């Protein structure tokens, strides 16, 4: 079973989903991301690791142009998804974000019912033709978000009334309800207990067969467990990017080595 998956994985690791060339990000005068080049492969899990404040979230937000919403933020360089320059003026960020979903660092459910939280994306994008179809999408998403059993009896209660960990899984379910091609996850497990974490990791493992998943994490173990590729950021630089096994067993840069052995961070 595991071997099967490994073969499948290797087979899929050929085509590139996202290409970033010379990306720089500035917050006013702060240079947060410095000349980053990276190729993110389709149908893989890519982990971003690095000390706090090194720019992992910032770079992640470049991939669905969420940085557009910050007035002082300026992004230069080229980012291509499926060979389409996402910063080109012909690209509508609204459409891009339907294609590239995101789970945020802090759980942020809408102050609406659990059902409406999940159904919102499919509704605005017109993914469901009927109420029955929408119900199906909601149930499927909640199941994949590993939260269905906890909320199935109270779908019309507010999403904000859930515990922090449940909220985060609700947000994951909400993000996958729109069937994005790329899923960006910014520390999705920081508010979760080990059981929920394991469930989310299982979900990620399952998702990457259809989607590209980019996950920011502070947990080396998590990066090692779920990802095939790992990128190490330090002070806005992409220091090292390689197969996860290589990064953890055989890092080429001394900074990477110090970080994963716990000497900087």
């Amino acid at each position: 079973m595991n071997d099967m998956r490994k073969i499948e994985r290797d087979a899929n690791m050929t085509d590139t989903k996202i290409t970033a060339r010379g990306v720089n990000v500035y917050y006013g005068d702060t240079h947060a991301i410095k000349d980053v080049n990276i190729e993110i492969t389709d149908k893989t899990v890519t982990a971003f690791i690095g000390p706090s404040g090194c720019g992992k979230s910032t770079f992640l937000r470049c991939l669905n142009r969420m940085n557009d919403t910050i007035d002082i933020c300026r992004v230069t360089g080229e980012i291509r998804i499926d060979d389409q320059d996402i910063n080109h003026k012909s690209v509508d960020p609204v459409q891009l974000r339907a294609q590239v979903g995101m789970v945020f660092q802090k759980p942020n459910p809408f102050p609406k019912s659990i059902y409406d939280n999940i159904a919102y994306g499919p509704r605005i994008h017109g993914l469901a033709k009927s109420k029955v179809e929408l119900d199906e999408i909601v149930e499927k998403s909640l199941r994949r978000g590993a939260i269905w059993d906890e909320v199935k009896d109270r779908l019309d209660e507010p999403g904000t009334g859930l515990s922090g960990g449940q909220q985060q899984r609700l947000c994951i379910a909400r993000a996958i309800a729109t069937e994005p091609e790329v899923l960006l996850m910014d520390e999705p497990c920081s508010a979760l207990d080990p059981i929920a974490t394991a469930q989310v990791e299982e979900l990620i493992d399952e998702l990457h067969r259809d989607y590209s998943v980019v996950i920011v994490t502070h947990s080396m173990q998590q990066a090692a467990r779920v990802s095939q590729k790992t990128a190490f950021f330090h002070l806005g630089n992409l220091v090292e990017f390689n197969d996860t096994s290589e990064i953890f067993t055989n890092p080429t840069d001394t900074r990477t080595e110090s970080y994963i052995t716990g000497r900087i961070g």
Partner: protein
Amino acid sequence: MTDITNAPAGPRKATSTELVAASLKRRRRKQMRLQWIGLGAISIAFLMLFILVASLVSTGWQAFTQTHLTLEVYVDPEEIPEERLPRGGFDDALAASLGQMLPGVDMSDRATARAVEGILSNGAQFELRDRVVSDPSLIGQSVTMTVPVSDPYDQLNKGLIERATPEVNRRVKDNEIAWFDTLAENGAISKPFNFGLFANADSRFPELAGLKGALVGSFWALLTCFVISFPLGIGAAIYLEEFAPKNKLSDFIEVNINNLAAVPSVVFGLLALAVFIGWFGLPRSAPFVGGLTLALMTMPTIIIATRAALKAVPPSIREAALGLGASKQQVVFQHVLPLAMPGILTGTIIGLAQALGETAPLLLIGMNAFITSAASSPFDSSTALPTQIFIWADSPERGFVSRTSAAILVLLGFLVMMNAVAIYLRQKFERKW
């Protein structure tokens, strides 16, 4: 604390626990002091409010009742022939009826008859006329009617004219008091709730004057104000807060809106006089123009309240919606605005409450005219509650003193009601989640 100096082993550093304990005492004292100051401030505010309301109630409560006289009037066909309606000797009919109730008064003397007639309000004859005109079959029959007495007798009945005052200084003479007492002994005098205070428009005669015109005028003015300032204010706030580029121009607009909110209202009145009445030729004294003027003043309040409410919506909600691929406009209208609604409504109602009490601009556009009928459209001449108070406060008749206080109480009642609605709406919308 004293350990530091008393310690035998010479000076040693106080431990942080000791330092915290020492500072804790100081911090507690500070907090207590602050609490007492706060409590004192609230007490003073409450005392002032109590004094205000108490003084208004003590003078105003009398205006909520009105002395009435019940009398039986013979509609004499000789005095009031059907073919001359609506004209006829209605006052003479009333005088005759009064004469019968006051035996021993020589009604053939013109002066005495005039004085006796003065017991009744001037409005009594019109009431009789209206009844007869609407039902001419009453001619030749006796009609029982309860009509307001004139202001001096009302004052006398309410004890506001002291019987102990020497006759020369008294507006009701000794013989008039005697008539009144006779009527009272016969049980003709009553003091019911003064429905006229709400059902009548303004009048020169205090016993007939009511707030209907002012209430209707204020209603039209506030409606106009709301219909204009609410959508415009919210629209402007949404644009400025959510869509406008942040640059010099938007800063300039923001500063000006804040300034606008601080402009004295009389200036808005002058502006309205020059622009709405002078240039556009809108009618003077019309609640519509009043509403436009009040809208100018309310809009900055609504804009500021709306922007504050929009700003208070957590950015994570916007991010969540944007991250799902909602457009800017969907984010604003489906997520931000519903969450900001309680704040917006509260701000709007407070703005409208301010507008309701605003006097100066209405004086300038002529809403302090003497108008004896309620406006039937926002373009008719009318007064408003605050200007009505202004007019009555200026009137020499004694009866207007208590009516002024009563009108202020009515105005305060409306303000309290509006604020209650604001609180209710806020809670109702917030209770959702």
